């Protein structure tokens, strides 16, 4: 029996922690491999020839969701949102092979719709228009090597490290970020106002505007997804330093969590690190 191996393996790890201050953890995260296996029972075909016809057989879902504190059931919102995305991706696994442009847009549209459905469900379950629905952020990547599809709502983040440089793939969807973008506030002003942290877009929130993107990864690149419990306490420079370490994804993730807790741990924190490792 010949099994066709993926040319790149994905080293991924994630964890969550309630931090040192909050009584409960309203974050949720998921790291999942979705496999479509082709086992050739007998044949004379070379695996090298087949790999180009069959394409990749594995997709990887990475997602962090930060339930909005101060509102009702933030943990329920974050869990339901992450679970809904996983459920969609799991059921759609057959579509991952050799996505052409149209199917790629279909996939992104379906992912957005999945998030939109959860958003509508959360809103529909509140008893009156004056009651806030459970709400959450969502930052998710569907990685079908080498392409990483990104859907982002709220102020959790995704970063990519390439050629020694870490760059944010997401922009926080907060009131402060919008004010700074519009040139109405300076970054210093945004740091001073508590309203700056208010989410301008959230699943279950009064507004929900997913941002969609993608990037083609290269061997050696790293992806890092996190909730704001990390970025409140750990600088971009430190994130860059940790992602540059010659260690596995688990060690990177645990190191970043330790940094967040040592820095105060004032919020729930969830972190996922994933990197493509050469065959």
């Amino acid at each position, binding site marked *: 029996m010949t099994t066709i191996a993926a040319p790149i393996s994905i080293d991924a790890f994630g964890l969550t922690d309630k931090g040192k201050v909050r009584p409960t953890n309203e974050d949720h995260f998921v790291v999942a491999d979705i496999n479509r296996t082709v086992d050739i029972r007998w044949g004379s075909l070379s695996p090298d020839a087949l790999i180009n016809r069959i394409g990749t057989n594995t997709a990887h879902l990475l997602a962090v969701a930060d339930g909005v504190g101060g509102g009702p059931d933030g943990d329920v919102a974050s869990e339901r949102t992450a679970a809904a995305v996983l459920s969609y991706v799991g059921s759609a696994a057959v579509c991952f092979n050799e996505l*052409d*442009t*149209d199917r790629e*847009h279909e996939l*992104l549209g379906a992912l957005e719709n999945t998030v939109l459905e959860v958003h509508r469900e959360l809103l529909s379950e509140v008893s009156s228009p004056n009651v806030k629905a459970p709400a959450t952020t969502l930052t998710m990547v569907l990685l079908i090597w080498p*392409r*990483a599809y*990104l859907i982002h709502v709220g102020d959790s983040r995704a970063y*990519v490290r390439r050629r020694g440089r870490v*760059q*944010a*793939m997401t*922009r926080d969807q907060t009131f402060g970020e919008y004010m*700074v*973008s*519009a*040139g109405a506030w300076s970054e210093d002003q945004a740091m001073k106002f508590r309203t700056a942290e208010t989410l301008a877009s959230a699943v279950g929130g009064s507004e929900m505007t997913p*941002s*969609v*993107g*993608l*990037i*083609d990864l290269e061997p050696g690149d790293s992806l890092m997804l996190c909730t704001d419990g990390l970025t409140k306490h750990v600088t971009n420079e430190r994130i860059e330093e940790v992602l540059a370490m010659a260690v596995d994804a688990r060690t990177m993730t645990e190191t970043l969590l330790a940094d967040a807790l040592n820095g105060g741990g004032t919020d729930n924190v969830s972190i996922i690190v994933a990197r493509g490792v050469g065959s």
Partner: protein
Amino acid sequence: MLQKKICMVGMFATGKTCLVQRYVHSIFSPRYLSTVGVKIDRKEVNVRGEPVTLLLWDLEGRDGNHDVNPSYVRGAHGLIFVVDGTRRDTFDQAFDIRESITSQVGEIPCAFAFNKADLTDEWQLTQADEDAVSARGLHVLRTSAKSGTGVEETFQWLADATLQKTGA
């Protein structure tokens, strides 16, 4: 509904993201944040009575060392080459970039956006540059993401041209 993939390409910091933001969300941000990978926005337009969804792929800017990723432009129906009118070097490389892309996707409708037209004091391009684009049979317009000048017209022209190209 018909869907058309439009790619925004050009050197870094020419205003590709700002043009999309102006066109889709009617907003302008003076702050520069470089795009990583591709940001995708969607806008529904009407072209000669037909509803069309434009899928706007805002590609990270070319930095001189790295070519446009061919897999990002695969399947594109139209291209917008964004040039910063206050930086001559962003125009000097535009035809090279276009050539490398058309070698991947073939001849597809494309428009040149001479962007930042509001910065008239710093403008470095000439009528001869616009003529050079037109002479190649390409569409050229001065645009300003800040004021909105030429933005709607550029996207609408391209949407129309992509439908003409496919005969839809």
